[in-house]
């Protein structure tokens, strides 16, 4: 890890201003992603701006839905009664993530910006297009058992966001509030926040340099109230998903009125599936429908040698999640 200077900011203005002065600078929230990367010399920052004192706090009902401050901790949000009641999939995605210690430190804003677990990215001895653009992608012909099968490119097949929360947020049309150095705020849906790797896998989100995540707002909907997050891994806890599904259904009289589906662990970004939702909407809430939806969701899959199993696993995960919310 390199030497760096450390500043504590108490307002968004102070944070963006102090960062503007230094080219190589990063915000630090819980530090659970950032410090790991710095210790492994995967990221170097000359300056860290601590944003833990920023007033990006609160979990409250607004006209647009539930607004969660970016500095809220994963554990607090996951256990919050409003989240548990109205967004079970969001609560589960948080409480099935990482470990209690990490969840107590990790912020919602930082969670959005966690980095891939691709083993080649995580070890500077390997080439990696995401870390060193143009150096190559050894995962394609190498160990890709935990990498993506949807949204992949010739340059990168990593699940750039390996976590859980953003998958649930993508499913339920959550919107991020961002604020730039000029104090200007904009709203970006989570589904548009992440970008596909294409030929520039180093670019993962639309966040501009210096821009802050202020909050996330999740609309209050019937399908979010009847939702679940199913996470599959060979270790029962403290592991990333091999595949996961965030689903919500609004079923009336056996017919699905509206549906939300997003997959984790299989896409190069949190994978909302309009294809699956289309199959589900207006159809009877039966296993046959769910299987058809799962097939639609994975139709475009491009697996590699080690992660071929994810095509079946992701479909089964989605079916099981849908069965769970429909019963």
């Amino acid at each position, binding site marked *: *890890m*390199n*030497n760096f200077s450390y500043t504590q900011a108490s307002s968004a203005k102070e944070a963006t201003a102090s960062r503007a002065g230094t080219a190589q600078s990063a915000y630090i929230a819980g530090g659970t992603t950032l410090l790991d990367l710095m210790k*492994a*010399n995967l990221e170097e920052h000359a300056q860290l701006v601590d944003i833990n004192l920023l007033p990006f706090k609160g979990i409250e009902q607004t006209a647009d839905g539930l607004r969660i401050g970016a500095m809220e901790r994963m554990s607090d949000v996951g256990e919050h009664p409003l989240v548990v009641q109205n967004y079970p999939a969001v609560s589960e995605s948080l409480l099935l993530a990482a470990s209690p210690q990490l969840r107590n430190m990790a912020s919602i804003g930082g969670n959005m910006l966690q980095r891939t*677990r691709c*083993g*080649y990215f*995580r*070890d*500077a*001895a*390997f080439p990696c297009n995401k870390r060193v653009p143009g150096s190559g992608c*050894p995962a394609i*012909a*190498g*160990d890709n*058992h935990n990498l993506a099968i949807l949204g992949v490119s010739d340059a990168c097949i990593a699940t750039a966001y390996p976590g859980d929360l953003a998958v649930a947020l993508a499913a339920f049309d959550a919107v991020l509030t961002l604020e730039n150095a000029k104090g200007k705020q904009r709203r970006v849906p989570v589904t548009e926040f992440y970008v596909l790797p294409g030929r520039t896998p180093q670019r993962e989100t639309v966040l501009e340099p210096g821009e802050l995540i202020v909050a996330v707002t999740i609309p209050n909907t019937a399908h979010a109230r009847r939702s679940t997050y199913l996470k*599959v*891994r*060979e*270790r*029962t*806890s*403290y*592991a990333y998903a*091999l595949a996961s599904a965030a689903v919500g259904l609004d079923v009336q009289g056996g017919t699905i009125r509206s549906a939300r589906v997003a997959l984790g662990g299989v896409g190069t970004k949190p994978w909302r599936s309009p294809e699956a939702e289309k199959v589900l909407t207006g159809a009877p809430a039966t296993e046959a429908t769910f299987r058809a939806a799962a097939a639609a969701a994975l139709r475009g899959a491009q697996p590699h040698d080690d992660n071929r*199993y994810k095509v*079946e*696993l992701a479909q*089964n*995960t989605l*079916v*099981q999640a849908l069965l769970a919310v429909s019963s």
Partner: protein
Amino acid sequence: MDTEPKFFETNPTAGVVGKPLNRVDGRDKVMGRAKYAAEYNNLPGLAHAVIKTSDVAKGRITGFDTTAAMKQPGVLAILTYQNIPKLAKTPNDADGKKAIGAPMGYLPLTDDQIHYAGQPVAVVVADTLERAQYAAALLKVQVAADKPIASYEDPKAQLFDPEKIQDGKADGHVKRGDAQAAFAAAPVQLTHKYTHAINHHSPMEPGATTAHWEAPDRLTIYESTQGVTRTQKSVSTMLGLSAEQVRVVTKYLGGGFGCKGSAWPHTILTVQAAKAVGRPVKLALTRPQMFTGMGHREDQTQTLRLGATKDGKLTALIHEKTSTTSPWDNYAESNSKIINMLYECPTFEASYQLARANVMTSTFTRAPGEAPGSFAIESSMDDLAYQLGIDPIEIRLRNYAEKDPTNGHPWSSKSLKQCYARGAELFGWSKRNPKNGATRDGRLLVGWGMATASYPVHNSQGTARARLYADGHAVVQSGATDLGTGTYTVMTQVACDALGLPMDKVRFELGDTKLPTAPNSGGSVAAGTVSSSVYMAVQDLWQKLIKVAVLDKKSPLYRAKIADVEAKAGRLQLKSDPKKGEGFADLMKRADMSDVEGNGQGRYGSGYEDAQAAANADQSKKDEAAHHSMHSFGAHFCEVKVDPDLGTVRVTRWVSVHGAGRILNAKTARSQIIGGSIFGIGAALMEGTVRDQHFSRYTNASLADYHIPVNADIPEMTVEFIDEHDPHINAMGVKGIGEISMVGVSAAVANAVFHATGKRVRELPLTPEKILGAKAV
């Protein structure tokens, strides 16, 4: 005639031995007072060293750019093969390797060659750890890289048949009868292939060394090792010093599992660094370095052919193993040993194939050979049972070995039948539905599996010293190691019973080459050998006091024959008339003795005239020398629930029953069995280090990505021991349980998965991918 006393003769009813006492070192550990190798921070001028490792797996170092690194404040030295202080001997030639007892036939920083990814190429020393780390990051190593070979699966790898494996300790070919002919003639034939992923020991405490040159020719190292004596020998030989000039201290160890059984490169590099900078130096491996710094369980494929009669009697076993080894050493776990001895079978053949690859040498990993070997034989026995419609326990009973099939020797003791019976009772095995895939819990498939466990009692010997004070306190010492498993505690218990003193009056000290020599804590020998040494040391002390008593006119034992006097519960008395005698304190006060000291030797096969011969014998001759085969036996029972759609396997019930001689502490013993079973469940369901086949470098060298079980993976576990009185094994009748606890575990899990799903998976670990991909038979 053997005159060595035995514990159950002098202590027909044990006092504290066997009791489930808490760890005597527990309080110091939770208070942070227990000092580990990297915690000797008060040494004057202590500096910090960091190892810089190679990115590539094969190549040649063409230069170093140290400019930026040397400019960093606090940097004291950058050591490379060009400037590191020279050694008297290295393991780079066969003689040197043998003399040093090195785990690896190559020591980094001896030349410009790179043989494996993660190989140390430089040591950076600075006044703080952070400065050393950053300077190491700035140090540039120029390398001419070559294309590496990654494993035996590499198409370019050349396979060869070694004559010997494991530094010559085991044979590369084993033959008993004509197994090929017997297999060809067998009415039932099974041929199956089993693969095992690379496993890493991953102890909580990494490898760490603190080296302090107290004088130019006197070195003390605080080391994270399973054996201070072996480390002393390795380090002193490399330095060209007498063993006496090197002191090794290991007061506490945060786990070892075999990876701390030898002195790996970082130890001597730290010693050399301390020499170079003229200050004490401390070095701890990072977690990623733990994946390339202290060995691993090798990647391997086994093919097991099993011939049997229609009623399930084995007639032939043929085992072949192919595995990866390093450029220098013929290391392979000897899987065939357990396959050869576990069941009555008239013929047996085993062979090993190795491929050299650009990896470091693999090493002993908890139950080396027995763990993966038992996976093969115990999965195949389950198949045989299923194919013939025989209950898995019944098939094992039909092949029960009443004598050691490998040499015809009687067992010193064997309670395997009782283990099966008691395990089955505790588990409820009789209610098992013989059909596969027929039991459900909601959506989940439920399966029950079992497997046999066995582990040999290796021959070894050790020594201990006991000093009893007239005021009723005692200090007992042996240079053994406590891996965190309870050695401090059980040795205190043994000393207490032997001395007739309560726990708070006896202190046991270990982990220092200044103390009497003890064997490495490995191969499950520590409990048996060290406890016997402690017991014998106390007997020696009693003999000295008895001699004083019979010469003391004021003693009630005056003029008694020494052989007629015994020590019981701290009292010296006539065997024929126990009322005639006195306590040691009275005698010692009268004789003006402040203390009395005894020395003892604990050894293998103590029930014999030629106990010393047995303890010294070559591994392959030890049973002969002792006239008995000595093994622990046990059985594991496992229930799994398998999600048929998601392929996830969860262990939901566990029962282990073992017969392992005398159990010294019911609580720490239970913990050993639980720990080993969890270790095995990890290997069965999730552990596997992935080596990229192009780069020969690991892609998951971290504990976030190399998964070991967490609490949520482990159910309540039931552990029981069968009472065994083994008069042959050693003075304490203790067999050791560190390794048997994981033997058979992965097979028990795989057999349960087979029962649950009808799917037989022979590739460890059994991940969802493999469960989903397999077809039910």
